[in-house]
Every structure is written in structure tokens, then in C-alpha cells.
């Protein structure tokens, strides 16, 4: 772990991820539906970038294309200045991992936590399995006794911690977060957000987060891309969001609607 402070100073940083002119269309002919429309953005190393928008705006579709779950896209995705192949290789997954929205669905119900954590180690040929499992469990705030639990023996927050541990155990550089706290209570959400912040500092990670909750995104990310109908319509810093500095009318409406209830006119 060296110099994790680079991101805080905003000094010249290497590019971790560069997405250019990404287009994703579902269906063909007259029924074609453009889900992602010419989206470009870059993420510096150690940076946290958030994509925000309403359901159906294409934010999760982008994540699925990035991680290789949907290979049918146009445009280029560069990771560390190398264009990633459509068929992602093992090396890519070693360095890019994803945490899904619903920890109740993303853990295998019949596999013990230690099996869940050992599997990526085995796939990527890591040594010292037992030590690494203990290390990562304590890093996500769970004790070594959690090794022997099944998912149904864990609370929602604990499950999400296991999901984060599973993603981090192979020491990736980029973490893709798909609404990691939207299935959790506010107090548990606070725990997980703190954990993500802390891990990012300690491990010099880069985050790409997708959420519909503006407060959550601006808490974790320095930069936010507002999405609407498949496009990133505006990129702003977390500071801009807090100060309500939005150029696009849609972003303004979204900001206003996110701050409690005022009757719509």
C-alpha cells in the first residue's frame, strides 16, 4: 500500500478506466431500444465516480457491460490504457470486481462463507488461503467465527460485508458497486458506507458506483454523472451537488426531488 493520498490531492493521476462512446441497444429493427446512448467517462486511479439516475436510465446496463455480463455493446472500454477484450479474461476479473445490490440474492444459500471466499482464491491461484480469509474477514469487520456461517445465518449488513470481502479478497484495483446499500436499513447503510470509505483509503481502490440515491452517491464519490434516457447529461463534483449547482433542468429537478418533500407545482 503506497501513497493512497494521491486521490485526495487530485494530483496528476493515471487513468484507471476510460469508457468512450459506449452504445448499447436491445432488440433490433423497429423494436430496437437504445439503453445506453454514446456514453463516455474516465476514472482516475483512486477516484470514486458515481452514476446516478432513475430506474431505466441505463446506469446498471453500463455496469453490466463493463464487467462483461453483456458483450453486445459498441464503443471501447479501456482499463489501464488497454482495450479490454469483449470476452473478459481472468486477468481482468483479478483486477475488476463487482458488488451487487441485493446481498440476499448474490450469495449462494448453501455455501459457507469460507467456501464463498476461498473460491476466487482458487480460481486466481492465490496462496495462503486460510490467512487471506481471516485477513479479509477482519478487514470487513467480521470475526474469524463468521467463516462457518451460511448466508441465512447472517443479517443483511453482514451479508453485504461478505459480498464485499469476496470481491476484495483477490485484491482488485477497481470495484464496481451496483446500489450496494439500497436493500439495507439506514443504520446498516451507514455501516457499509463507512466500511467502503475506509477500505478505499486503506487499499487504494477505485470505485464506480451506481445508485438512485443522491445523498449516498455524493457521500462516497467525488464526482457524479447524472444520467437520463441512456445519456450522461451532466457531470458534476460532489461539491456542486451539495451547493445545488446544476446546469441542466432535469438535474435541478432531480436534486430538488431528492431533498425531502415539496409539493410539485
Amino acid at each position: 500500500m503506497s501513497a493512497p493520498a494521491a486521490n485526495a490531492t487530485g494530483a496528476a493521476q493515471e487513468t484507471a478506466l476510460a469508457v468512450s462512446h459506449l452504445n448499447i441497444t436491445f432488440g433490433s429493427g423497429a423494436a430496437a431500444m437504445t439503453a445506453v446512448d454514446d456514453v463516455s467517462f474516465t476514472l482516475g486511479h483512486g477516484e470514486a465516480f458515481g452514476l446516478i439516475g432513475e430506474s431505466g436510465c441505463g446506469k446498471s446496463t453500463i455496469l453490466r457491460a463493463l464487467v462483461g455480463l453483456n458483450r453486445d455493446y459498441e464503443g471501447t472500454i479501456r482499463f489501464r490504457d488497454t482495450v479490454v477484450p469483449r470476452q473478459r479474461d481472468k486477468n481482468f476479473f483479478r483486477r475488476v470486481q463487482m458488488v451487487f445490490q441485493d446481498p440476499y440474492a448474490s450469495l449462494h444459500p448453501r455455501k459457507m462463507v469460507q467456501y464463498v471466499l476461498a473460491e476466487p482464491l482458487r480460481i486466481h491461484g492465490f496462496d495462503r488461503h486460510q490467512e487471506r480469509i481471516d485477513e479479509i474477514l477482519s478487514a470487513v469487520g467480521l470475526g474469524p467465527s463468521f467463516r462457518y456461517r451460511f448466508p441465512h445465518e447472517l443479517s443483511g449488513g453482514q451479508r453485504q460485508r461478505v459480498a464485499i470481502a469476496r470481491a476484495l479478497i483477490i485484491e482488485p484495483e477497481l470495484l464496481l458497486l451496483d446500489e450496494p446499500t439500497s436493500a439495507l436499513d439506514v443504520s446498516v447503510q451507514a455501516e457499509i458506507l463507512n466500511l467502503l470509505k475506509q477500505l478505499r483509503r486503506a487499499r487504494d481502490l477505485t470505485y464506480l458506483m451506481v445508485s438512485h440515491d443522491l445523498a449516498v452517491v455524493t457521500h462516497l464519490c467525488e464526482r457524479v454523472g447524472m444520467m437520463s434516457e441512456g445519456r450522461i447529461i451532466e457531470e458534476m463534483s460532489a461539491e456542486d451537488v451539495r451547493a445545488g449547482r446544476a446546469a441542466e433542468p432535469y438535474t435541478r429537478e432531480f436534486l430538488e426531488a431528492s431533498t425531502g418533500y415539496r409539493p410539485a407545482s
Partner: protein
Amino acid sequence: MAKPLLEVEDLFVSFRGAHRTTQAVRGISFNVGREKVGIVGESGSGKSLTGRTVLKLTPKAAHIDAKRLSFDGIDLLAASERQMRSIRGNRISMILQDPKFSLNPLMRVGQQITEAYRLHHKVGRREAEARALAMLEAVKIRDPDRVYQLFPHEVSGGMGQRIMIAMMLIPEPDLIIADEPTSALDVTVRRQVLTILDELVTRRGAGLMFISHDLNLVADFCDRVLVMYAGRIMEDIAARDLRNARHPYTRALLDSLPRLDRATDMLQVPSRDPAWLDGPTIRSGVAT
């Protein structure tokens, strides 16, 4: 002040198991008048169960016990199932979280609204249909004649929730229980739906029990807020005073939220005090 619509005193709801009894709601008391009362709490705090208990729509295994559970002078505890049926939908109605699961998928939405009206009012089909169309218009659906003919899978989430509201409000109930009515909706749609609900409730002078986990929303939308934890009411407070709440649990919940107005580094994670389990309820800043 007029007599409250709903009076709840010392309500217990428990589930008997083979080995032990789980008490989900433990001795709560509150009143709801013709006002908007928010009930907030984390999952498992008993907020939804409290809402269902008022309609006696609890699972069979649930055992309800209370000193008083009355609605507009009717003792709900003693009411027969027949009496409850004349109350449900007609005088107290419930809006559920997700319209995808609460609308009948095989029936056109207009027919569902008409049915809700005709069940409680002796009117002809024509009149009920006209009423349903008027109601769809009242929930700001632009093309009611077209939407009337649609099936639930053909409408969006926000529109589905407005249809639910139309269906629940058409019999003109006195009390509406809304269980997370906007949690499944996007923020901008949420605002439309709440505005409609707000208008209709205020115009008709009905009471609203608004169950939610979103403290900020409840603080802005409701008149009064009940904060629940582990089956008890921790605090009963005017919504405008919520940000100056006295109970440590209410404070902790507020502090655990990421904020949009200023940057925070680490969020407060609420620590829980076992003394709260049997502690007093703070009503408008006074422990009782």
C-alpha cells in the same frame, strides 16, 4: 380538539411459536386524528404490523391484545369479521408498497377501481365507471379513458401507484394507511405521487398513517411522526421538530443518514441501548 379517529392504547401483537412467543409490537399507544401521521423505524420495528393490526389483517398466528383499539367509536377488537369487511376499504383503506404485487394482473385497472367503489356503494355500473374515470383524473392521469382499459403490466410503477391511490380513495375512507407507498418509486415520480396523496387527504379531511423508513421524507410530508424501535414507540413528535428530536435513537437515525447539505467523512452508526426496550416514550419532548 375533536375526538381522534383512531385510538390505540397499550397494543401488543405477538406470535406464538412452538418454543417461545415473539412479541412484535409491545405496548404502544397513539392516536390518529384527521392529520398525517408518519410511522418510521427500521425493518423489524413493527411499523407495518401496527398498520395491518388496525385493519385486523394480521397473519393467523398473530395474537392481538390491547386496552383499546377503536376507530371512530367502533371497538375494532370486538368487531366481527363481517363488521371488519364493512370497514376495510370503505372507512379505512390501505395503500401498499408495490403496485406490481397489489393490483390484480388479470383485470383491467378501471374495472378494479369500479369494483372497489361498487363493493361499498349501491350504484349502477355506469355511475361507478364515471366515478372511476373522475378518480383517475383526480390522481393526474392524463388520458383516463385509455388508462381505464389497461392491464396492470401495461402501466409504469408511478402510474400503478396512482391507480392504487385512486382505488383506495374512491370509497372516500376516513383513514388511509399507506405502507411505504413510494419506496418502489423514483424520486421525481415520488414527488408527484405524494403531492396527489397530500392534496386528496387534505381536501377530504381524512386521516393518514404513513409508514416509511425515510426520515427526511416523513419530516417534510407529515404533521406528526412516531419513531418505532423493537416494537415500541420511542418518540412521538411534531414533524417540524423532528430535527431537534430528544430520544437518542431518533437522533442516531438522523445522524446515520448521508446528507446532501454538507460533506461528512464517516457516518454515525447508531449504538443501541437495551434500556430503550422498556424505556418511556418521549411525547413532544416529554417522557411519559
